[in-house]
């Protein structure tokens, strides 16, 4: 099991205490629906106390992955381990109720005929009767819902339902909780608030959690680690910083933020692009003619009004404090450029386009990332002259 680096702020250090066995482990798990492999030979570990975000576009198989762990789907191949016990694969099958895994459903799935307290107590049937009440009170305290224990689910707001669902999942002290798109039923404002609350609750409960999301911002903010899934395969798993700054595949790079890919040719001086020279070095290519693709984000692209500039402003997207310009290069390729709202360029204006990142740009060949490092520009001016 790989434990990522420990260079993060407090709260994320919990998982870093050495090589502890994984709470949830998937070993080359495959799940097919007909001819389609929803999950394709995927391996993944969840460390004790870790919050792992499963991120991917809809239909990428992330929810199926969660259901394989919970026991609602059976793997066609591979193994699922929970707390050191094989629960699926190799002839073993442990039904969901015996896995010791809590789940928070996308629609919360609160039992409408039971009160909040009864919902939470539902999972405590194996606990001594005398201990049920205190444990219920304890988890309701944890989520700040003790005052509403006698309410029925329909009397709660979306955020409150969310917290009850979490309390219910936590009550039987599972090895891990699984959260399926936990915030997708909340509106934008509430989502931000509940997100922070949930992270706080999970952290104070000290429990391993896996949550599924298609929202990259959510994954980066909530996850100790992020696993990016595409077409049933694991594209990359790592800390949010690693995923964001060092995407290992073109897919991962493209998934975060507005990303443009700019074709480039590897030369001795750096990378030659349509928008000038980008002074950075890449590891030599094993094959091909030196053609690569650069990941260019809007804040890596500057534009300056210039009557003889090669770029043309296609459109401007006003976003309050900033403006995103869509700029066409001579080849017709479109880049996005983030500009302060003070820069006002009309549609059709000619601009000089410059890729000026200030950090090495991720670079891909055939969809896979290449090692990059900043090259010392031969002269300070050369970098500045990387204009189109």
């Amino acid at each position: 099991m790989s434990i990522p680096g420990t260079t993060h702020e407090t709260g994320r250090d919990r998982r870093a205490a050495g090589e502890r066995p994984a709470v949830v482990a998937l070993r080359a798990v495959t799940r097919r629906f007909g001819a389609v492999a929803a999950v394709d030979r995927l391996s993944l570990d969840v460390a004790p106390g870790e919050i792992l975000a499963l991120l991917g576009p809809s239909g990428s198989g992330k929810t199926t992955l969660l259901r394989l762990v919970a026991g609602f789907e059976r793997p066609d191949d591979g193994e699922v381990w929970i707390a050191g016990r094989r629960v699926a694969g190799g002839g073993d099958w442990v039904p969901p109720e015996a896995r010791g895994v809590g789940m928070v459903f996308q629609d919360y799935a609160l039992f409408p005929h039971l009160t909040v307290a009864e919902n939470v107590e539902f999972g405590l049937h194996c606990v001594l009767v005398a201990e049920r009440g205190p444990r219920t009170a304890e988890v309701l305290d944890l989520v700040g819902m003790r005052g509403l224990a006698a309410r029925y689910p329909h009397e709660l707001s979306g955020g409150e339902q969310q917290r009850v669902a979490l309390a219910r999942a936590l009550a039987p002290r599972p090895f891990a909780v699984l959260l399926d798109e936990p915030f997708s039923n909340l509106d934008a404002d509430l989502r931000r608030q509940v997100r922070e609350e949930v992270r706080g609750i999970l952290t104070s409960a000290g429990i391993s959690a896996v949550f599924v999301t298609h929202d990259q911002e959510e994954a980066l903010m909530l996850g100790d680690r992020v696993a990016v899934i595409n077409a049933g395969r694991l594209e990359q798993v790592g800390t949010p910083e690693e995923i964001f700054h060092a995407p290992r595949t073109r897919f991962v790079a493209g998934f975060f933020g507005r990303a443009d890919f700019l074709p480039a040719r590897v030369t001795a001086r750096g990378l030659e692009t349509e928008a000038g020279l980008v002074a950075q070095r890449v590891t030599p290519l094993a094959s091909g003619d030196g053609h690569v693709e650069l990941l260019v984000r809007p804040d890596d692209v500057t534009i300056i009004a210039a009557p003889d500039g090669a770029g043309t402003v296609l459109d401007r997207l006003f976003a309050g404090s900033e403006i995103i310009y869509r700029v066409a290069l001579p080849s017709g390729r479109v880049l996005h450029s983030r500009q302060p709202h003070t820069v006002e360029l009309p549609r059709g204006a000619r601009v000089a386009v410059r890729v000026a990142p200030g950090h090495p740009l991720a670079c891909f060949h055939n969809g896979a990332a290449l090692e990059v490092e900043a090259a010392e520009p031969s002269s300070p001016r050369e970098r500045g002259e990387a204009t189109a």
Partner: protein
Amino acid sequence: MRAPVARPVAVGRGRTVPVPAFLTVPSLLVCAAVLLPVVYLVVRAAGADEGVLELLLRGRTARVLLNTLLLAAAVTATSMAVAVPLAWLTARTDLPGARLWSVLAALPLVVPSYIGGFMVVTVFGPVGALQRALEPLTGLARLPDIHGFAGAWLTLTLFAYPYVLLSVRAGFRGMDPSLEEASRSLGEGEWTTFRRVTLPLLQPWIQAGALLVALYVLSDFGAVAIMRFESFTTAIYLQYQTALNRSYAAVLSLVLVALAAVVLVLGEQRGRPRFHRLGAGAKRPARVVALGRWRPVAVLFCAGVAALGVAMPVGVLAYWLAIGVQHGDALTRVLAPTARSVTASALGAGLTLLMALPIAVLSVRHGGALARFTLRVMYVSYALPGLVIALALVFFAARYAPAVYQTLGLLVFAYAVHFLPQAAGPLRSALQQVSPSQEEAARTLGRTAPDVLWTITLPLVRSGIVAAAALVFLTIMKELPATLLLSPTGFDTLATTIWTDANDGRFGRTGPPALVLLAVSSASMWLLLGQEGRRA
């Protein structure tokens, strides 16, 4: 908060979580019970002395087949001809009293066909009420005999057309008015829009209603028996009663089942409403069509239908009651048959629910071959007329289980097999409304599958269970042919009392039980319509 989205159930997926035995075993038993009548009829027909083929090719079979097909086609056609204009008038025009007419137009559905048949004979018979009313004017001593095709056609149309009406009205309700507006904005006139947009959109709903009418006619016994019209059900009953040739009765039954199956398959393939409202715009009421100078004609049309379908039954019932009271007929005579009807119906509804529950859960919640199989079996049971089920069980019990022959148990079992789809329908829709994630949540909280069924699923579908039970209970109260064939000696229910009395011409005695049955029938219709309203 958005409405919770129900996850599509894992139907038809490969290796899902195994189906628990507490569902599979009862489901298999129920499937066997449903298939028993058909399978036994096949066995019986195959074991005939004459070959099945000779039996099938008798001239009589062809005549019965032709009669039945003609009747089904005629009733379905006239039902559509009456119901579609009625639906349009009450749903889309400025017809005066549209609300009243729409209630009145649906009411005839509550009259069981055997009661309806007597009423038609009472009024239109050779020396019926109409003849007596006309005699002073015309001097006619007899009207042309209503018995036969004409009577069966009239009766069945009168009391079955509301199936089409209700379906088409649901179609009008669900239709997006902007589709018609789009057509108008594209330059089509009012009539062209109706022909090219409205009618094609309604077509699945018309077909769905027509399918119900056709199945109703095929399986009807009461009306055709009273009208002495030789259709499959009467021919089968005759063969059974006279015990002339039981194999021939089995063969006829099988042909009838096959016919119903063909109608069902054809209707389902082409008639399932396929047109869904697209888009998310707020729904507006449709434009009201001004009838203008056609208003009197429209009102006359509605009044005519209501006179035949509502005023006539009410009037005849009042007349019978009056005659009964005049003859000093004790109204208390109705108590014993009512008690028997209630007993049999309660037991039948209980068993039906018990049988429907496992297959409803299995078919809604689990994928795989068995779930698909149970759905098919339920589908088959739609095509089984009550008379055929009863006949098969009579044959079967007489030969293999004489101990249960003519017991209440066998009657209740027949009810359960017959009305299984009726109970399974509401149960299935109730189950479909419970998000499977609630059951999955219970599993992750450490509960086993049977435990989850008991603590989560059943409490959540309680209203569906109650609705299904009530519906089956009331439907059994009205049931005639199976009760006639299978009830223990001396076990006269409301339905059989009415049938015997009316067959013997003692119409006056049928008043009180008919009144009770109409009340029961109205209650069941109210339940059924309430459910449709919820689903719409």
